[in-house]
């Protein structure tokens, strides 16, 4: 019965299958692409198919929600170990194949040995010399050594220059002496460090010949091969329970005058000669690359997490019935309530927007990376600014949105059966790691201020900030600003993009002018910057919002298939109009729109909610998450929520006996009072 209710909602004006194909074409989809045609023949003959892997008995385990933290860690290590053994068995060595194989196995899984592949090996490749790669790469790829990457310290995060760990060169023994001089300098947070890894790439301030040369990377053995015991001079352990990532042994590392050979400093760029002479790296900018890559990747992760949360909340809202709209009629699906639609559909539109932005970021990164390969660094500053801001913008939005999806599921959203708490706790660190979001927004703001100054001094800027060329203060008389409102057509995505552009331009200009005023009044530029930083963040947010609206609008126009274009156009309009409604003050104050237009916007939003309602389930089906990936009883594809919820609860460890052992306390209470 439930199944049919859910299925009925898949019969909608647009086929979710077609949408799914569209998304597949645009998105990095694990398990679909990476097999190169040339390899496919061999690959398919030796490696089991996708379904065989998902059903492989070696990878089955108890529902993680019912396990303690230590047990969850153990399951994770076991899975990684079996996976590596299988890869050895099948002879999988190509990075694309490894990615494919891993993604299939791990689904949403956090992998304690993951940092070995995602950070240790890439850093070795980027910063190690050929000799160093020869020495370490083979053994780390085969997990003979398990490496991690230790940067963040207990007292220092995003501000890299503040790191305190020191590496002092001793020319007599040709060794570096690594030291954690204070409690705040203890390395803190690196994944896989606590229990799993036996090597770490450590970032430390390099001292040689009495001088500090800033941060450099060192390969540090931390545990003895064979016994896995911490080496003398090393204090290492797990940082304790966290909000999420129960399977991961995020760790701490304290080094007490710990010596490593000179060859363990990664020396592809900078070098320390045996006598202690420091040789400078040729180009500093290249290290940008990894950061930009990870941040642009995180935009896609925002999209993915939000899409999951929307899938669960929308499907459950189609199955859940509550109250009555018309007395006497059966309780309606909660998705028929305007308030529920208003909670979820703007988020669904956001998920689609971020999917397209994520794809765009990936393409742009690859394109610019190619330019960099040819020595053209001209687009790097804008890309850097854009990825920083969009990482912050999309992760903040997604963080709030996942929580909103969870709450839209009412009480059951609070149970781990919904899968939503887990999506949230796994996603929320994105707001602080790889660059704390406020700091990221201020980096984008720095670029915007630079661009503004450039325009102000008569030079044109290009790329996403080119709207600054058209600032009213540059071209048009202020009075003419009043002409703008008539231009906004609330049914045209292009016209709405223009409105967002004007808002961004205005807020950038306000921030720039306030900054100038503060600079005049304050002694230091830095103090002025701090006293304008709330305005600067606002400007960056408006800029990023414009970029997202613009990219979404452009993407919709490129879609050929009419029925899909129609449904996505509605989402795109909803995304743009909802943002205007939520930030009406900016649009009114800037005279970009009139009061009556805002009223129309609010009315139009409600029409769109009704128009999107029939397609809502199809729109989340198009994200094509397998049930096992969603990990949610509420978000099941077949909609059989309640029966499975009951079955799930019965498996809870607390239900293993009918009378719980703690009954003794109750008994004694009753006898003593």
């Amino acid at each position, binding site marked *: 019965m439930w199944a049919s209710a859910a299925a009925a909602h898949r019969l909608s004006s647009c086929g979710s299958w077609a949408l799914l194909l569209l998304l597949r074409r645009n998105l990095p989809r694990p398990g679909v692409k990476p097999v190169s045609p040339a390899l496919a023949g061999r690959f398919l003959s030796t490696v089991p198919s996708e379904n065989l892997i998902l059903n492989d008995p070696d990878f089955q385990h108890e529902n993680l929600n019912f396990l303690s933290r230590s047990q969850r860690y153990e399951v994770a290590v076991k899975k990684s170990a079996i996976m590596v053994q299988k890869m050895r068995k099948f002879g999988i060595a190509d990075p694309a194949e490894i990615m494919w194989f891993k993604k299939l196995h791990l689904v949403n899984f956090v992998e304690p040995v993951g940092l070995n592949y995602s950070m240790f090996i890439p850093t070795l490749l980027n910063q190690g010399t050929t000799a160093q790669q020869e020495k370490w790469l083979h053994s780390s790829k*085969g997990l003979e050594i398990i490496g991690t990457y230790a940067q963040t310290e207990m007292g220092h995060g995003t501000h890299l220059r503040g790191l305190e760990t020191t590496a002092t060169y001793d020319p007599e023994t040709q060794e570096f002496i690594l030291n954690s001089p204070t409690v705040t300098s203890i390395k803190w947070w690196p994944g896989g460090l606590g229990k799993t890894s036996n090597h770490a790439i450590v970032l430390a301030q390099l001292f040689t010949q009495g001088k500090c040369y800033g941060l450099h990377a060192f390969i540090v053995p931390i545990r003895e091969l064979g016994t896995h015991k911490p080496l003398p001079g090393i204090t290492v352990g797990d940082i304790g329970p966290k909000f999420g990532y129960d399977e991961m042994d995020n760790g701490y590392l304290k080094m007490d005058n710990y010596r490593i050979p000179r060859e363990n400093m990664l020396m592809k760029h900078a070098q320390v000669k045996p006598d202690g002479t420091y040789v400078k790296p040729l180009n500093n900018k290249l290290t940008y690359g990894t950061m930009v890559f990870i941040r642009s990747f995180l935009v896609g992760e925002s999209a993915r997490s939000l899409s999951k949360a929307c899938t669960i909340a929308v499907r459950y809202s189609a199955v859940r019935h509550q109250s009555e709209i018309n007395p006497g009629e059966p309780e309606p699906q909660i998705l028929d309530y305007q308030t529920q639609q208003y909670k979820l559909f703007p988020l669904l539109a956001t998920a689609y927007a971020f999917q397209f932005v994520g794809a765009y970021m990936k393409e742009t990164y690859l394109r610019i990376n190619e330019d960099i390969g040819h020595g053209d660094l001209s687009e790097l500053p804008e890309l850097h600014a854009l990825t920083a801001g969009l990482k912050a913008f999309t992760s903040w939005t997604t963080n709030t949105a996942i929580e909103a999806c969870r709450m839209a599921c009412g009480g059951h959203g609070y149970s781990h059966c919904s899968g939503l708490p887990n999506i949230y706790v796994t996603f929320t660190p994105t707001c602080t790691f790889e660059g704390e979001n406020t700091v990221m927004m201020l980096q984008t703001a720095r670029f915007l201020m630079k661009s503004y100054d450039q325009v102000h001094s008569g030079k044109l800027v290009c790329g996403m900030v080119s709207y600054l060329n058209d600032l009213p203060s540059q071209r048009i008389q202020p009075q003419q600003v009043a002409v703008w409102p008539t231009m906004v057509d609330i049914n045209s995505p292009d016209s709405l993009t223009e409105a967002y552009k004007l808002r961004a331009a205005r807020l950038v200009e306000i921030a720039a002018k306030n900054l100038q005023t503060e600079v005049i009044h304050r002694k230091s530029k830095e103090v002025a910057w701090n006293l304008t930083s709330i305005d600067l963040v606002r400007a960056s947010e408006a800029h990023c919002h414009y970029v997202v609206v613009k990219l979404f609008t452009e993407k919709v126009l490129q879609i050929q298939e009419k029925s899909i274009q129609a449904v996505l156009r509605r989402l795109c309009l909803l995304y743009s109009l909802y943002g205007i409604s939520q930030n009406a003050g900016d649009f009114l104050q800037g005279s970009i729109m009139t009061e009556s237009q*805002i009223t129309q916007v609010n009315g139009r939003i409600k029409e769109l909610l009704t128009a999107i309602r029939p397609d809502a389930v199809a729109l989340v089906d198009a994200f094509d998450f397998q049930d096992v990936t969603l990990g949610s009883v509420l978000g099941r594809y077949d909609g059989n929520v309640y029966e499975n919820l009951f079955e799930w609860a019965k498996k809870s460890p607390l239900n293993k006996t009918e009378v719980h052992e703690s009954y003794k306390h109750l008994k004694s209470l009753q006898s003593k009072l």
Partner: protein
Amino acid sequence: MEGNPVHRVSAGDAWSSSMHPDIESERHSQSFNVEELTNILDGGAQNTALRRKVESIIHSEPELSLKDNYFMTQNERYEAAIKKKFHILMLAQRLGWSEGSSELQYASRSVSGDLGFAIHHIFQKTIRSLGSEEQIAKWDPLCSKFQILGTYAQTELGHGTYLQGLETEATYDAATQEFVVHSPTMTAIKWWPGDLGRSATHALVQAQLICSGARQGMHAFIVPIRSLDDHSPLPGITIGDIGPKMDFEHTDNGFLKLDHVRIPRENMLNRFAQVLPDGTYVKLGVPKSNYLSMVVVRVDILLGEVLPLLQKACTIAVRYAVIRRQSRLRPSDPEAKVLDYQTQQQKLFPPLAMAYAFHFVANNLLEFFHHSYSFILDGDFALLPELHALSAGLKAMLSDFCTQGVEQCRRACGGHGYSKLSGLPSLLTRVTASCTYEGENTVLYLQTARFLIKSYLNTQKSPGSASKGSLPQSVAYLTAPDLARCPAQTAADFLQPELYTTAWAHVAVRLIKDSVHHLQTLRQAGADEHDAWNQTTVIHVQATKAHLYYVTVKIFTEALEKLESQPAIHQVLKRLSDLYALHGILTNAGDFLHDGFLSGAQIDMARKAYLDLLPFIRKDAILLTDAFDFTDQCLNSALGCYDGHAYERLFQWAQKSPTNTEGNPAYEKYIRPLLQGRRARL
């Protein structure tokens, strides 16, 4: 009263004898007397003294320590909570703390409510409000002596806030004078009640009453569910725990399936409705009276559960923000305290202002509740609609804002806010539950909206006549004279409580009018009443939120008027009140600009006034969180201790984690074979 009261210091750790200089400097110059502010929050110096006395007793009992909470499994948390409850009851018996006494409330606060049987007390309170004198006489002593353990079973697997939708049935059988209580479907299984999964012996079951062949709506029935001898489920009862949740691991939220369970006629609570032996149904109250127990709980949880969670989060985040240093403000300076960054102030001070605003709001609501409750129990229901509307709306608003505030505080602590040892994840997972329990917030906003619409329509019925006098107090402003334009001319004008309270009133009235207008337009265009309602719910919610913001601003400013005799404290709290009102105006600027009530220039003035407040609040920030006077044991945060030694504690606490103190079985089982497997091949 400056200094470091002994009870604040964590017992037996190495750092608490000294102060971190970065936090000590914050307490050097005090623009107001922290102790006096604490007394105000406690409702008098004698209460502060009593609270501290209870806290020192509680903290000297090792059985009541919260230290290991973060390392425990769900099973262990449950057992510990029962053990603690048991221990506190023994203490209460020994020290003569009576049921419902301040001492017991303070005791609960000092262990962060981490106690079993919370719902047992709701069970007992509900019997007191919905039961007849006879029923109270029979059941109340059994509850007080814990001879029975109760739970309150309302929510079902498929049904929540909408009471009429509940499916559980209680059918009267006149032949045996019994009710047959039954769960007819899968979705009718009672789901979520606390204390149900493993503890309770009796449940207060909300069920559809069927008698004389008619459905009479929801009523409450006392149903025995577990044997008083061996605790096993009684015949016809299927019962268990609903499995792991985000938090509330100490509570055994449970499920309950009833298969034609028979209970005597006397087990229906009958203060407001009765079934006579022959099955005749007699109504004694208004339809709303059944909801009374929900009103009681909503009022209780604001002060008892929701608000302290935000106050703790603010304390932890603000203290950590003066210890944490990051980057430099000037190239020549040492790294700056993160609290000196404007963006950090923007994150932390609005929640801090709310933590104070809501203190006065929740106390105000409590007073109103006491005032009206006695009338209601005597059968005078005149104040019930307003009480219901206010408690529903304020529960929704405060739980929403407290949840956002706690999360904001957590994220303002960067990576360490993600560690459970910071205390912040647990505060968040606990406060966020309050957005859906005891009434899902959107549903509650809409209940308040119905009251607002009714009140507004009343003002339209007989304009200018005596109707004004009859408007309930919280909506009296609907007929107050209103300005079309805000008179502010400078940023300083926005620091006048009169001005911003009026501004909020203006916006609330406009939005309420607007939402009624929309509703009526749809009706006149031929829409069915219920569809018209559904099509306007988004604006009703928006209007209700504005109304509630107005109510809270007004309560806060009025509470401050009473503090004018303490100018230093008045000044520091007034800044918070200003910040609270202006923060709301700026985040909803569109609503104020919409009809030209504020001009763009005035919004800029308001923003300037807002930004200028930040550095003033910055000076007092630590003292303002000190004034909440949470003990370190109660905060249970490595980041937020009074002495500021965050890093040392974080390191020490992490080392105590079982992942460090117990061996690593995964190494022997998997990592070692993995490493050696390769070597064998090489």
